[in-house]
């Protein structure tokens, strides 16, 4: 196995005037050089090539091919560096930095949004295209190094053997996932379909990017009709609630206060303790009138009060603490659309709900929106994505490969090795 960085520094009999760089130092330099060059080149080139799915995929593929070509022609440490643990670990940290950046700056908003919100910093964000880091050339070129490293390191370890199979499975998985993600980024179409129940039909999808409409339309290839829509609620519940008034800062920075639910209790006959140290017990419960008679213990003589869920009747434990009997807010359990898809000769009925999409004619349809004011409206998301199964297959292989590497390979190695002393791990 090739372990580039473990080689000791070159030593010569007579000390040279300036000590030669050690292998490790040269590797560190080359690693930094390659990564910094990829980032800078990407930053410069994206002045002319703006971020986008095609930019990402074409940029990464092209640059990856160049790196692999260099791999074969450039002598010296390039190969060992690219296939080495130091390089890949550094790349993984660089990718982690990209992923963090994507959460510090909201992605894919219009340029005006950043400038309005962040002023000068906003201009900087837009200038460096930090508003779309995952589709820009700096990211694409880093991915190119990544791909070249995955392929290169595998080629150095060819041929395949049982004892190295975890590594190969993992790397085939990585490349399969990346290829699938590339197909998704370039070929997938997603968009919205808004329908009203009672027979309204859609033939097109309003295309979106990053959730915002692009103004384009894509043909579904079939007619989609919404027959019925239903927003199902959980059963109505009545509970005893204990609220405390807490301060908060509103949008203008003013300190205000609001009531926060701190604890709640089933209406039962047990004695309950409250977070402020008081306690209460329900003397009687009237399910029909949605009211309870509460006996509150605060030291001294207990106080009794009728608490009704139908009208405001709080028991003030203190000016900033109350006990109430209340109906729980309407909580939605499910949104369900019954649809019919009709193509030239065939017709298919289907039910779409959150987490249970329907696939027809290459499109997958998801329940994503509803309107409490308009019970007939249903918002669907339509996605055409030829890459996704490859992404999952790749991911599955990565899981398998990693588990194999950790738990099967050591056993195979142990079996193969003589029963004598264990071999020390490569440094």
């Amino acid at each position, binding site marked *: 196995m090739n372990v580039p960085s473990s080689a000791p520094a070159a030593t010569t009999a007579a000390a040279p005037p300036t000590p030669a760089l050690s292998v490790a130092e040269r590797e560190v330099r080359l690693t930094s050089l390659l990564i910094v060059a990829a980032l800078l080149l990407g930053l410069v080139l994206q002045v002319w090539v703006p971020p986008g799915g095609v930019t990402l995929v074409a940029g990464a593929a092209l640059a990856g091919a160049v790196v692999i070509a260099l791999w074969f022609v450039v002598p010296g440490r390039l190969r060992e560096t690219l296939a080495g643990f130091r390089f890949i670990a550094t790349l993984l940290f660089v990718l*982690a930095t990209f992923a963090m950046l994507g959460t510090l700056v*909201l992605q894919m908003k219009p340029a005006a949004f950043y400038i309005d919100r962040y002023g000068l910093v906003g201009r900087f964000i837009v200038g460096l295209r930090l508003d779309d880091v995952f589709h820009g050339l700096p990211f694409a070129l880093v991915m190119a190094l990544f791909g070249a490293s995955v392929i290169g390191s595998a080629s150095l370890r060819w041929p395949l053997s049982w004892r190295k199979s975890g590594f190969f499975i993992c790397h085939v998985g990585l490349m399969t996932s990346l290829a699938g993600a590339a197909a998704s980024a370039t070929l997938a179409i997603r968009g919205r379909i808004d329908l009203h129940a009672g027979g309204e039909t859609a033939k097109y999808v309003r295309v979106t990017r990053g959730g915002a409409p692009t103004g384009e339309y894509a043909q579904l290839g079939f007619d989609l009709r919404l027959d019925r829509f239903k927003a199902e609620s959980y059963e109505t519940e009545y509970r005893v609630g204990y609220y405390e008034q807490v301060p908060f800062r509103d949008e203008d920075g003013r300190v205000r206060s609001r009531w926060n639910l701190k604890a709640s209790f089933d209406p039962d006959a047990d004695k309950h303790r409250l977070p402020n140290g008081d306690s209460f017990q329900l003397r009687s419960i009237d399910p029909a009138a949605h009211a309870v008679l509460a006996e509150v213990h605060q030291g001294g003589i207990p106080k009794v009060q009728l608490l009704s869920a139908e009208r405001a009747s709080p028991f003030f434990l203190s000016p900033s603490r109350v006990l109430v009997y209340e109906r729980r807010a309407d909580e939605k359990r499910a949104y369900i659309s019954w649809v019919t898809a009709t193509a030239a000769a065939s017709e298919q009925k289907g039910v779409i709900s959150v987490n249970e999409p329907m696939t027809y004619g290459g499109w997958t349809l998801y329940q994503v929106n509803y309107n409490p004011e308009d019970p007939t409206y249903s918002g669907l998301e339509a996605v055409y994505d030829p890459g996704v199964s490859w992404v999952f297959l790749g991911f599955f292989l990565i899981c398998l490969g990693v588990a194999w590497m950790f738990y099967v390979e050591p056993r195979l190695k142990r079996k193969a090795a003589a029963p004598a002393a264990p071999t020390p791990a490569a440094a």
Partner: protein
Amino acid sequence: MVGQLQYIAVEYPLFAATGALYAAAMALYAAAWKSTRQLVARAGTALMLAALVLNLGLFIVRWHEAGRAPLKSLFESLVFFALCIAVVYVFFELIYRTRAFGVPATLLALGCLLYAVVRWDAEIVKLPPALQSPWFVPHVMVYFVGYAAVAIAFALAVIQLLAPRVPVVGRLLTMKAGTIMTGEKLDIEKMSYDLVRFGFVLLTIGLLVGSVWAKSAWGDFWVWDPKENWSLVTWLVYGGYLHLRRVRGWRGEKGAWLLIVGFAVVMFTYLGMHLLPTAEESAHVYTQ
């Protein structure tokens, strides 16, 4: 605060008892650092097992009360995190045959429960449609077992860094009396590496299950949601650690520092999402 603690003790007795047992187990594990009597250390393990059983009971009772897996709110996830830490630790104790690290493990589990007290949100809430998926339970469970493994690896990394500097801690790794079942010197570096490997497999599976779920719920396997991104960051940092470990010079303290960074990233992913400017768009933030 006293009122709040009384309220928890009366209304959530199982929770309070679980915390008390973890604290008691910790005290005995600590006593076993000094004592040469096997009984003390064994009692530590026995109490740890008892705490684990109560913690499991807490989880099951809550599941029954809520009518769904109790993995939704911060409170529920902290209770489950404590359980995972206890389970992973007990296996760890069995495999490596040492009780030297019972204190940090119980401290982690107890820390989860104490944090649950500070950020108390034990109200049972209904599951919104997006979470009603067969992927929900495996996704969260796999992640928390993985988090538990890297949490213990983090504790070992801290001990590894303190050992040469603080004599009391250093003694932990060489001590032959009381806590150590085999009497051999402990290879703490290898132990944390094993834990990270185990954790990494689970983080990988968690990432996969999460993306399959995202596909079925949102129509896209990756939506660059802050939590998704940060779980990718976690995965990449531990991936970086596993590779760097094979680079000369990264086995010792540098590797331990990396595990501390890794766990800080895990904690931020778990609890820090609301601090991000992109949080408002996330489907993953714990709110109160």
